[in-house]
Each structure stands twice: as C-alpha cells, then as structure tokens.
C-alpha cells in the first residue's frame, strides 16, 4: 500500500456570480514511504492548491473538492474535521513558502515548536521546550538555547525556514509537504535548506512531496516528478528519465528555459511562448496547445489521455518530443 494515494483529485473554485474554475483536474499520483515526489509547474498550474486540498486546508466556502486522498488507506477527504486536525502536524507536516509570515510574530520560536509537541504528543511545556531545543539543534540552528526565546523577526530568513522545518518535523510525520520551501530565500541559503531537507528525509525516512517551479530543486532531490499544467498531470517520470529525455513539449520547454553557463555566447535564452493564462479548457483539447511548438490537429479534438510510456512513466501528449531531440 502506498503511503499516499491521490486519486482523481479535483478542485473547483465556485465564486458566486463567476464561472466555476477548475484549479486541479483529476490529478492522481502516489507517494511511497520514504520517497520524494516532485510536483512541478509554473505559477497557477495548481501545485499549491493540490497540496492544500490534500491537507484539507482549502476554505469550505467556494471550493468543491472531489476524488480521494488515501493516506495509509484512509480517505482524508472523508474524515471528520476533528480527526483530520489530529492527523495534521502529526502524520503529515507542511512547510510553506514564506518563512517569516508563516511564523506567529508574537510567540517566541521555542514556544512555537513546543506547542506542536504539546498538541500531538501530549508533552508538558517544560519537557516540550527541552525537546524543541534538540529539534532546533538538529536543523542546524546555531545557539539553540537563545533562539528558544527569540521572536521570528529577530532571526534570519534561513534560520526561520530551519525553524519551520523543525516545527513540521517535530512529531516525526510520515509525510512532509514542502510548498516552494526555498522560493523566498537567497541562493546560498536555498542550497543549505535543500541539503538539510534531503538529510532529514534520509535520516527519518519521511516521505516528501516537493512542490516547486524550480527544476534545479527537483534535480537534486526528487525520485519521481509530476509535471502539472493547467491543473492536470501532463508528464510523470523518474528524475533521471525526465531530465535526460523529457517527452512532453511543456517539460522540454521548461528544461530548455533554464539558463546554462556553458551555452554559446550571444545565444538567447529559450522561452515558452505566451503565459499560463493562454490556456484552452481541457475539454476542448490540450490546454498547452496555444503555446506548444509540436501542436497537431488531434490536440484540438479533445483532451489527450494520460498514457503509460515505455520507460515506466506517464505522458499526456499526442505528439511528444522525439527521444532524439535532447535538451540543448
């Protein structure tokens, strides 16, 4: 049994007086224990909404969530709110994008770590604070004794993200969801945080869902990668397979858009035409068609199905990039 089995997860935003918008469209993927799975795509492709839907954190008003989110066989979407709350933070941890705004500004760091332990492991405050000190030390925060009493605005961005990781991992969850954990940090700190995440995931055997638009993050961390476009999975492959032989034109375009130091002088950076807003609804055809270089007539006849590939992944494309065309 997979640790997490997401089946046909759909999220529809329904605002009064507006047309319903399908943010996540029948997304399915699995996470095995200890595995690191990437969800990749541009802003607006449904990555964060997927993660919030898994955690049951979308506001009830104005959203319709359908499908199944099986965590160790239990459908999280069908749980009573209290039961789901007991699982959040204990079984599934989450790290958010902006470490400053994700910490409560009026509570010292130590107390914020301790509170999770009190909530889910029933520790007394004193004992929880001792444990919090160990946790801060484990995520590489220098001088943890003093950090316990400090407030979020007093420590640096990198340390804040470390503190958030300590909070998320405090109860040794079996699954950690990291929603763009390095986007708000500068590059050197990004590398440190990723190394730390990798190290902690390896040590504790926690499975990780890494949500990112940064393919560099994927390259260093993920076992399998799900590429999302317009709310649907368009390609799924093992990491090496994806980087060596991207099949979907969108994946190919993303990889070609990464600046390289060894490209010839004067060569312009490749860019995917248009923006995420240039979608067509999936019912009409492939949502990526307006931006695609490989578009064929079949692309406008209806949504292409997600089909298994020879290399063990899945692909949703009528005219995939041929294997000979390597990433430049």
């Amino acid at each position: 049994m997979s640790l997490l089995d997401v089946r046909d997860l759909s999220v529809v935003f329904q605002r009064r007086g507006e047309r319903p918008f399908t943010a996540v469209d029948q997304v399915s993927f699995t996470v095995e224990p200890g595995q690191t799975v990437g969800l990749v795509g541009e802003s607006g492709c449904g990555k964060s909404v997927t993660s919030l839907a898994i955690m049951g954190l979308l506001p009830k008003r104005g959203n319709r969530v359908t499908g199944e989110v099986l965590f160790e066989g239990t459908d999280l979407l069908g749980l009573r709110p209290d039961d789901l709350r007991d699982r959040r933070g204990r079984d599934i941890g989450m790290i958010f994008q902006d470490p400053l705004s994700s910490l409560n500004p009026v509570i010292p760091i130590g107390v914020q770590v301790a509170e999770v332990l009190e909530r889910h492991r029933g520790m007394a405050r004193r004992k929880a604070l001792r444990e919090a000190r160990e946790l801060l030390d484990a995520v590489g925060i220098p001088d943890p004794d003093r950090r316990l009493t400090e407030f979020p605005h007093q420590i640096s961005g990198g340390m804040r993200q470390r503190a958030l990781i300590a909070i998320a991992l405090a109860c040794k969850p079996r699954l950690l969801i990291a929603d763009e954990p390095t986007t708000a940090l500068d590059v050197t700190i990004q590398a440190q945080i990723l190394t730390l995440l990798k190290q902690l995931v390896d040590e504790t055997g926690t499975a990780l869902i890494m949500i990112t638009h940064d393919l560099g993050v994927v390259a260093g961390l993920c076992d399998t990668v799900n590429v999302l476009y317009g709310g649907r999975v368009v390609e799924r492959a093992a990491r090496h397979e994806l980087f060596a032989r991207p099949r979907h034109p969108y994946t190919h375009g993303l990889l070609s858009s990464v600046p390289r130091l060894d490209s010839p002088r004067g060569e312009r950076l490749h860019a995917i035409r248009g923006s995420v807003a240039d979608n067509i609804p999936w019912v009409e055809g492939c949502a990526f068609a307006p931006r695609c270089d490989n578009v064929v007539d079949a692309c406008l006849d209806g949504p292409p199905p997600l089909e298994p590939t020879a290399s063990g992944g899945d692909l949703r494309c009528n005219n995939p990039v041929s294997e000979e065309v390597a990433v430049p």
Partner: protein
Amino acid sequence: MTDPTTRPGVGKPRTGDSPAGTSAEDPAGQPGDGPAGHRERSIGRLGDRKRARLDELARATADPGGVSLYRDALRRLRRNPVAIVGAVIVGLFVLVAIFAPLIAPHDPVQRFDELTRDLTVDSIPGATAGHPFGSDPLGRDFFSRMIHGSRQTLFVGVLATLIGLTLGVLLGAVAGAFGGWVDVVLMRLTDVMLALPSLLLAITLVAMASRSSQWTVIFAVAIVSVPIFARLLRGSMLAQRESDHVLAARALGVKERNIVLRHMLPNSLTAVIVQATLTFAVAILDAAALSFLGLGDPDINRAEWGLMLGVDGQRYFEVRPELAYYPALAIIVVALGFTLLGEAMREAIDPKNRR
C-alpha cells in the same frame, strides 16, 4: 538587525561558514603581497589572546535575546519626542489625580469665610494668600477643586475606555472569529451606532436613563466607543485569518479555539491598544461635554472640569473668565497628551517601522 549567524565561531560548519581562524587580525596577512607560499605562512593560527578578543567582540555585538513586539515598540517609543511630551503630560496628570488630596491645599467642598465674605454676583475673589486661583462662585478654593477635578476626569476616562474596550473587543473578536451571519449581524449593529454622531448618541443614552449620575456618563461614553473598537478588531482578525501563519497553524492541527485565541487575537490587538489611548482623549472630551451640557453628575459638590466649565465658567464668564479658562485648558492639555501618546504608539507599533 545584527544577524547573529554571522558571528564568528558560532555558525556551524554545516552552514558553510569558514572556520573562525582567519587572517583578519593578523597584520602580516596582507592579501596579494606575495607568492602563494607567502600566503601559506602569513595565515597561521589564531593565538589565544586574539581568540579571547574575538569572543569578546562577538559577545558585544550579539543581541540580547528575546525582544517581543511590545518591548521593541516601547524602545522606539522612548526615542520619539512626541511620545515623550505625551507621556510627560499623561504621567503628570495621573500623578496629580492619584495624589490629589496631598497636593490640594484645601478640601474641595469646604466654603471659606474669607472667600464668601467678598463674594457677590458681580465679583468673585481672585488670587489671595492661601488661595492661588481664588474662589469659585460658592466660596470654595478654586485651585483645590481643579486638582480634585483631575481625579474625576481620570476615573471617567479609565472606566469608559475599559468598558468600551472590553465590549468592543468581545464583539469584534466574535465577529472576526465566527464570520458568516454572526459577523453580518454584529457589523450592521455597529454601523447603526457609527451612523449617529458620537456625542449625539451619548446625549440620547444619558437622556434615556431615568436618573443622571456619573455612571450614566461613563456608560454613555463607553457605548459610543464600542463600535470603533469592534470594527477595528474585526478588521485585523479577518486579515489575520487569511495570513500564512494561521494557515501554517491549521496545517499543524491546531484547534480552532487556539487559532483564534493564540494566533488571530494577539496579532490583532496592537491596533486596539493604540485606539484605546486615543479613545481615552475622546472619552475625556465627551464626558466634559456632557457635563457642560448639564447632562452629567447632578452633584454640585463634585469637582469636575466639564461641570466647572459649563456651569461656573459660563455663568460668570464676564465676572471672572479664569473660571472657564482653567478647566478648559486642563481638559485640552490632558486630551492632547493622550492623543500625542496614542499617535506615537501607533507609529511605534506599526510593523513597517521595525528594523
């Protein structure tokens, strides 16, 4: 902000810092003044004396640990001259009010023979020995009455603000926490109250009470401030509800009650605290206005600035204008003090001003 991670000798090797022992303190370590072999020799090791010095410097630049939002604001408040002026006025006023019986030379309700002797409709005795402000129209010591008046003002201001604050925070927190129809109903209620001019509402409330006393004044002034507190708190609670740290708390399984009490409410209170100071000034003015209009405490013995201004000051303005000047001046200065302090607090507590 001093970033403690950059302190030498503290950063863990894991964070990628180079070890503390570099050539920064070594005079021989001139960069680029020789071949590679020279460089090797000049770096050397950090001596014990230099290491002690390094630790000392590191300690000196380390920040002193947990400084809360409020302590940080207080520190900025102390550097603001406007805040100091406001605080001095408010501080003096509170001290005078507390120690009024010790400061005032006489009993504020006692009528003095030496004052009543010269008292007529056309002349009220001015300053004499022992009575620096002279007499009031009933032959009582005007100075002592002014001093004791501060107590009444402080009493009304504090109680009215506290009652208004409590009710307003309760309403605002309930509206912000529950949302939905509870929010709609409560906010329409505050809209109705805000639609009426505050003084008019206070007058109506006092008029509705069957018997006027200082409590009707306090209650009226308090009720008038409730919608302001309620709206303010509800607004920031709603903003907090959408904030990342509340989402993060939800993701950790924090119970809804604790989300409201520990995450939304404490982060929303700053605006309310500032408003309380400003409300205090308004409460003093409103209470004085009610007394001035004759809607205050009917007890003629009670020394109250608004009453003194409204009854004695107005009636005997041509005889002795000081009877109006002093209470008016006192009300203005105290209200100004609270306003200055409130404005300075608003500035200090604003997160945009934080370092």
